[in-house]
């Protein structure tokens, strides 16, 4: 990128600079022996053109909106349209969550993001014995289409885009969404939104799996195929690094493991007979935002560039939309402290900047009280306002990819990409992501990083403000949002009512059909949709699938 003779001038002055600083260091050593990034990588004292001399602008960066998309997926980025401010919410009953969604839309939230409770995510009805104590706790409880109708009551589904954090039973919830829309008079081809639908990271890090790998991959490719025809504007998967990072991975691992999962989905779909350019444009990603501003920005840029290369070179994609990595970001839940929770507002602000400077398409900002409980309405508002301040007051949205060309950020981008490539190669050697998960390779790498990080904190090598330094005596906040146990009881009563009121013969008939399809190879989605419409419950539908597919067994890696 630079002229040869100018570079050698820089080299000379850098030598000079090093001499001066090392003399300085003799007199007064620096604050630390080693300066490390949020992921534990050593950071040099100075970055110069020498660190990025190999970069070829057109090849490595290019223009925003074109290959390899390092600088962003749209040509004018936030000058055209701001990112979608999408706040993940949902708790207790469909009624209460519905109120929260309406509130968020009134406050300027531009997309909905549904959190489901754990029984829903694992395919159990609220009256299942394993659901005891969990109903409505971390999200809304959905047992049947009835609950879904209430959840989106008064929200026009042709106007909003809805993201649903649902994985193992993603097809069932998507079917319910389609059915609700139909009742509103909205056809499936007008629906916009995302289902998470990323089972591999459930095995790796998040734990809400149901079925073994093979049938799970089939369900995913069935959804790809079905949506490419019937719900063309729907993002069929959100390949998630978020939870991998929350589980303790480094930034490079987040990129490497997430893209390796992505590769596995693309391969599965191709193997199932789909054409890469038919489904790849609807693949989306989901990354974390931690506190190390520059590392995070570099991470998003590296992920975009690497995915573009993978899609083009490895899978021969032709459609530019197949090559551009679009992603949602959530600020890092694990970076929040239970101590002095108001400090979390500042952390989230830094993370918001990282995501925006990294070119995110949508963003959820965490609330200050999330290390304590579910967020209160006030905290959610502050979190949303943080995004709005960055969008409208900070000025960072005025130009596209403002940090491009920074010696530090570009060299960090290169480094993260190179490390991610190494992880992907290793996973390829092991036979792909599903095998690498089976063997526990990915989990072990993440756990090693997590344990190292914990030790750094405990030895005060890493300072977390308010937690291991700058502590105060404080009273823990009271009056946190709590979900009453009566929510579970009410859901149970509603289930009894539902089972008495519906046409049980029709339910049984659709479930028998579904079982046959599961045993065969036809696409399951139309049959799930039929079952959902008869008000078969989520638990009943997934039970049929459990019977046919079996259940996943966790690999224990510590």
């Amino acid at each position, binding site marked *: 990128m630079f002229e040869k003779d100018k570079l050698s001038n820089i080299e000379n002055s850098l030598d000079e600079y090093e001499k001066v600083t090392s003399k300085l260091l003799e007199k007064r050593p620096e604050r630390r022996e080693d300066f490390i990034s949020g992921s534990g990588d050593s950071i040099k004292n100075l970055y110069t053109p020498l660190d990025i001399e190999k970069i070829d602008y057109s090849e490595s960066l290019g223009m925003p909106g074109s290959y390899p998309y390092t600088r962003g997926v749209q040509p004018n980025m936030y000058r055209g349209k701001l990112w979608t401010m999408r706040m993940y919410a949902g708790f207790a009953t469909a009624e209460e969550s519905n109120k929260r969604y309406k509130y968020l839309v009134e406050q300027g939230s531009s997309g909905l993001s549904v959190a489901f409770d754990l029984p829903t995510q694992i395919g159990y009805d609220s009256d299942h014995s394993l659901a005891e104590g969990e109903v409505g706790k971390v999200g809304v409880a959905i047992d049947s289409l009835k609950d879904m109708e209430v959840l989106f009551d008064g929200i026009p589904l042709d106007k909003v885009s809805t993201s649903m954090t649902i994985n193992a039973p993603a097809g069932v919830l998507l079917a319910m969404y389609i059915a609700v829309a139909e009742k509103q008079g909205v056809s499936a081809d007008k629906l916009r939104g995302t289902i998470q639908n990323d089972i591999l990271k459930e095995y790796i890090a998040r734990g809400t799996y149901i079925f*073994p790998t093979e049938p799970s991959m089939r369900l995913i490719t069935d959804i790809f195929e079905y949506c490419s025809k019937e719900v063309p504007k729907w993002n069929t998967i959100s390949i998630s690094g978020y939870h991998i990072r929350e589980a303790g991975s480094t930034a490079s691992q987040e990129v490497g493991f997430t893209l390796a999962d992505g590769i596995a989905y693309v391969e599965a779909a191709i193997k199932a007979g789909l054409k890469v350019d038919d489904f790849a444009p609807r693949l989306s990603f989901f990354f974390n935002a931690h506190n190390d501003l520059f590392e995070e920005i570099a991470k998003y840029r590296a992920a975009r560039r690497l995915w573009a290369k993978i899609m083009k070179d490895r899978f021969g994609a032709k459609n530019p939309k197949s090559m551009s990595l679009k992603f949602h970001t959530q600020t890092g839940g694990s970076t929040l402290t239970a101590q002095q929770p108001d400090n979390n507002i500042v952390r989230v602000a830094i993370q918001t900047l990282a995501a925006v400077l990294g070119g995110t398409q949508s963003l959820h900002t965490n609330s200050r009280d999330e290390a304590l409980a579910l967020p209160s309405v006030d905290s959610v508002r502050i979190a949303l306002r943080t995004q709005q301040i960055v969008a409208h007051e900070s000025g960072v949205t005025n130009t596209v990819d403002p940090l491009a060309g920074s010696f530090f950020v570009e060299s960090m981008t290169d480094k993260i990409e190179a490390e991610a490539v190494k992880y992907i190669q290793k996973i390829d050697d092991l036979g792909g992501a599903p095998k690498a998960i089976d*063997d526990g390779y990915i989990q072990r790498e993440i756990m090693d990083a997590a344990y190292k990080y914990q030790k750094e904190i405990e030895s005060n090598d890493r300072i977390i403000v308010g937690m291991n330094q700058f502590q105060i005596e404080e009273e823990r906040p009271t009056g946190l949002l709590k979900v009453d146990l009566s929510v579970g009881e009410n859901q149970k009563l509603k289930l009894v009512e539902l089972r008495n009121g519906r046409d049980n013969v029709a339910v049984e008939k659709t479930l028998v059909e579904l079982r046959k399809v599961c045993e065969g190879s036809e696409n399951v989605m139309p049959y799930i949709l039929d079952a959902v419409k008869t008000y078969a419950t989520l638990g009943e539908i997934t039970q049929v699938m459990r019977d046919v597919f*079996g259940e996943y*067994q*966790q690999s*224990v890696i*510590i």
Partner: protein
Amino acid sequence: MDLLQGLKKGNKRAAAKLITMIENRTEGYQDVLKEIHKSSGKAYVIGITGPPGAGKSTLTDKLVKEIRKQDKKVAIIAIDPTSPFSGGSILGDRIRMNDLSLDPGVFIRSMGTRGHLGGLSVATKSAIKILDVYGAEYIFVETVGVGQSEIEIVKSADTTVMVMVPGLGDDIQAIKAGIMEIGDVFVINKADRDGANRTRAEIEMMLDFSNSEFKPAVKMAVAVDGKGINDIIDEIERHKEYLIKTDKYHHNRVTSAREEIVEIIKENITDKIFNDHLISSQLAELTQKVVKREIDPYTAGFNILKSIKL
């Protein structure tokens, strides 16, 4: 002796506490062992061994579920290697047997490989006896087939199931000498992976060289999906019938009883010698001389032997 009463009545807590007592060699443990020996010897012991990652725990889980259909009481001892660095350990085999922990007819105990004063094999054999008296009709002992004491444990089982996975070519070469001999049933788990047939052929070829009377069969399985489980059970039964018919069953028990006595003698001799102050100081003194090349280690060793009074 409350615990012993409880044990004989099939109380789980008593069995668990007694195993701890043996593991830690808490005072009185020998009395316990003396007491229970008489009533032990009824259970059929099945060893499950193979390299790490072969799926031993999952296979054990499925085998036990199948055997439980006959309403037989089962116990499992899962042995996990201890971290070589900290002396602590994380025992994770249980995780693959999670549904079994709700079955009242199953008892599962995890054991680390460190921290057993008398050696792991002694502790395991004692634990087997306790679970035998507790009423288990089948006892599964699951362990990675490495290390002398683990091989000893496996050898003391009535039937040993060797679990392999496809694509272990070189590993098979390496372990054939030691471990291939002790397998009575061979299982190729994860048989849906590439190379399963090749691995099977390799094992069968090696077994052809063996001149033992009982020809082990090689069974294919995908334990995670419950495939091949019944075949393996049938094969265990076939081996059991062979043992009984040929009187090998009795013969093996004679061998292991003898080994047990020998082991107790060895262990106690070693204890006595190295806990003796005089001998310790003599050893220290002679060691110095050996290092300085004043005498050789043989002379030193025999000098010490001379002064030992048992």
